[in-house]
């Protein structure tokens, strides 16, 4: 869709705003409807919009499949890590109240980290799925990636 002037200009204007909205949903889980899963989907879909309009291979150069994979794993690790830290501090798995000095402080910190892990993983999986669906065409570009990378 490179030659589509309207779509290109509007996408350039809207994508940063959508990305910021995703982060807003991520960090305001306590106040309104929202949280990690929705934020991840919005973030991922903004990136997919970019890939649709500027081409999947350009999107792959912005966030390489390796980075996407590693970050998706980091999200899960963060989630599991919070749980394990809770065990190490003498609580149950994912028992947030032992994470900080006060119970409410611990709960805030725990939920914040867990939600962040969920959001990160969901966003990266969305992007990864987009990469899978779009496949890889060596004729378009050659930036050294392999079809199985996505």
């Amino acid at each position: 869709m490179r030659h589509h002037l309207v779509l290109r200009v509007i996408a350039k204007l809207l994508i940063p705003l959508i990305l910021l909205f995703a982060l807003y949903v991520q960090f305001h889980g306590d106040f309104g409807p929202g949280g990690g899963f929705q934020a991840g989907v919005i973030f991922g879909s903004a990136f997919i919009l970019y890939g649709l309009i500027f081409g999947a291979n350009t999107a792959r150069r912005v966030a390489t499949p390796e980075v996407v994979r590693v970050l998706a794993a980091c999200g899960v690790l963060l989630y599991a890590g919070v749980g394990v830290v809770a065990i190490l501090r003498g609580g149950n798995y994912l028992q947030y109240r032992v994470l900080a000095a006060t119970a409410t402080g611990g709960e805030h910190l725990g939920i914040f980290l867990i939600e962040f892990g969920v959001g990160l993983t969901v966003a990266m999986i969305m992007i990864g799925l987009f990469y899978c669906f779009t496949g890889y065409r060596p004729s378009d570009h050659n930036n050294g990636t392999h079809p199985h990378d996505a």
Partner: protein
Amino acid sequence: MQLLLDAISWICLLSGGFFVVAGGIGLLRFPDFFTRLHAASVTDTLGTGLILLGLMLQSGFSQASVKLILILVFLFFSSPTAAHALAKAALHGKLVPFVKR
């Protein structure tokens, strides 16, 4: 004062509803794709605008109004873009517009 605001808000909601339904009827009645685009844009502009304006008047200066304005601004950017993309794709897909000469 509150009564006046309420009244204006109800008028906005009702006329917005009227334009939304009119757009829907047009979408069903009009003869070909390109004319239907115009009908859809009636709902997308004035219908949506009036309904959201009516809701804004209900909540006054508050967080909710800000969100409504953001929804409205986003729709005013995205709906013509989508309509333009559709029209361009239809033309490119060899859909011949029904034109009166």
